[in-house]
C-alpha cells in the first residue's frame, strides 16, 4: 500500500499481537491479582520436581555438549540453504548453474558424510 514500506502491514500485525499479549499479561498478572486468590506458600514456591524436594540447588548446571553440536551443524546447513535460495529462484532461467550449485553442495555433502561417519549425528554415546 505504501511504496516507502511494503512490509508495513506486518509491522502493524506484530504491534497488534504485542499489544494484545501485553494487555493480557498485565490484566492477569497485575490487575486481577488484586481480586483473585493469591496464596503463596513455601512448598508451592519450590521448583517443581515430581513432588519431592529439589535434589540439587538451582537448575542451571552444565548440560550436554551434544546440544551445541546440533546447533553448530544447523547453522552450517542453514547458511547453505540461505545461499541456495537465490540460486533456486533464478535456476529456471539459468539452467547452466546446475554444476556450480552441485559442486557447492557436494563440498558440504562431504562434510555431512564426515559428520555421519564420525558419529556426530548419533545421539547416543
Amino acid at each position, binding site marked *: *500500500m*505504501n511504496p516507502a514500506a*511494503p*512490509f*508495513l*502491514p*506486518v509491522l*502493524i*500485525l*506484530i504491534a*497488534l*499481537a*504485542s499489544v*494484545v499479549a501485553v494487555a*493480557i*499479561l498485565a490484566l*492477569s*498478572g497485575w490487575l*486481577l*491479582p488484586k481480586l*483473585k*486468590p*493469591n496464596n503463596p506458600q513455601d512448598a*508451592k*514456591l*519450590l*521448583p*517443581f*520436581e*515430581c513432588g519431592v524436594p529439589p535434589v540439587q540447588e*538451582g*537448575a*542451571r548446571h552444565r*548440560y550436554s555438549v*551434544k*546440544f551445541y553440536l*546440533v*546447533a553448530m*551443524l*544447523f547453522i552450517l*546447513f*542453514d547458511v547453505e*540453504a540461505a545461499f*541456495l*535460495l537465490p540460486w*533456486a*529462484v533464478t*535456476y*529456471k*532461467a539459468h*539452467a*547452466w548453474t*546446475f554444476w556450480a*550449485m*552441485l559442486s557447492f*553442495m557436494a563440498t558440504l555433502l562431504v562434510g*555431512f558424510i564426515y559428520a*555421519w561417519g564420525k558419529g556426530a549425528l*548419533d*545421539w547416543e554415546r
Partner: protein
Amino acid sequence: METLASLLHTSPATAWMAVKVLMAFGLIMGIAPPLTWAERRGSAMIQDRIGPNRAALFGKIRILGLVQALADGVKFFFKEDLVPPHANKRLFWLAPLLAFVPAMLGFAVIPMGRSFLSGGTEYHLSLLDPGNGMGMLFPMAVGAMAVYGILVAAWSSNNKWAILGGMRASAQMVSYEVGLSLAVIAIFMVTGGYDPHEIVKAQQGTFLGVLPNWYVFRQPFGFLVFFVCMFAEANRLPFDFAEGESEIVAGFHIEYGSMKFALIGLAEYGHILGASALITTMYLGGWGIPFVADHGQIPVIVTFLVFLTKVIALCLVFIWVRWTLPRFRYDQLMNLGWKKLLPISMANLLYFAYRMRG
C-alpha cells in the same frame, strides 16, 4: 471497498490494510480456542470417551460443549498468577510474549483467496502484496523465531525439567529446520520464485490428467519431509519433546500458570494453524480449487472458503496424528531428522534440479 474507506475517513488502501491485519490476527485468535476444544473432543473420540460436553452458556446453549473453550479462557484469567521466586522475573514475564508474537504471524504472507479488482485497483487477500521480495521466506524466518519463546521460558523458570525440555525442544526444532528449508527450496526452484501468489498460481490445473496440479503429487518426497518437519516445528506429537509427560512432566512451561500459560498454549495452536496454512499454500494449491485452471470467474469468498477448509482439515490431521502415534525416543528423533529426512530432501532437490538442467 470505497464505501468502507469513506466511512472510516481513510484511503481504500489503508482501509484494506486494516481489514487484512484484523483478518490475519482474528483468524488465528478465532480458530485457536475452538481448536483446543476440537483437540479434547477428538482425543475423546479416538480413545472412546465422551470429552468435554457439559459447559453451557446461561445453562442452555451447549453446542456440543464448544462453550468449554470460553469457560477455559475465563478460568485462566482467574487462576493464581504465580511467579516462582527462583525464576528470573523479567524473562519469566517476557517469555510468553516471545512465544505468542511469532505464532500470530502465521498468516502474514499467505494468500487467503483470489486477488480481485475493485474500483480499478487490485486487492490481494494476503497481508503483503506480491512482489514484496520476502514471500515465503518470511514464514520460515518467523518459524525460526519460535525457538526463543521456548528457550527463554525454560531458562527463566530455573527448573531442571524446564531447562531439559527447552533444550530438547529447541535442538529438535533446529534440526528439522534443515530438512525443511531444503524441501522448500525444491518448490521455489520448480516455481521459479518464492512469492506465495506465484506458488499458488503454479499449482492450478491438472497433473498427469487425473490429479490436481498440486506439489504434493509432483514432489511427494518433498511433501513428506515438509509435513513431518512441520510437526516437529510445531512441537506436536510424535515430536513433543518440549513436554514429554512421562519424563519431564510439562517441560519448558512447567512453572507457568494462569494467562501466561494460556498465551503459550495459544502460541502452540497458532503454530499449528500457521503450519497448516504453510502446507496448504506450498503443497495443496492454496486457495485454488482442484482441477480448475482459471479462477477468474469464481467468487472471492469461495476461494477463501476453499483455503479455510484446507487449513482446518490439516489442523484436524494434526490432532488425529497426536492421538494416534506414540512419542518417539529422543535418539530416534535425531536419527530421523538428520539421517533420513535431510538426505531425502537433498536427494529430492538434486533430482528435480537435475531434471531441469540445461
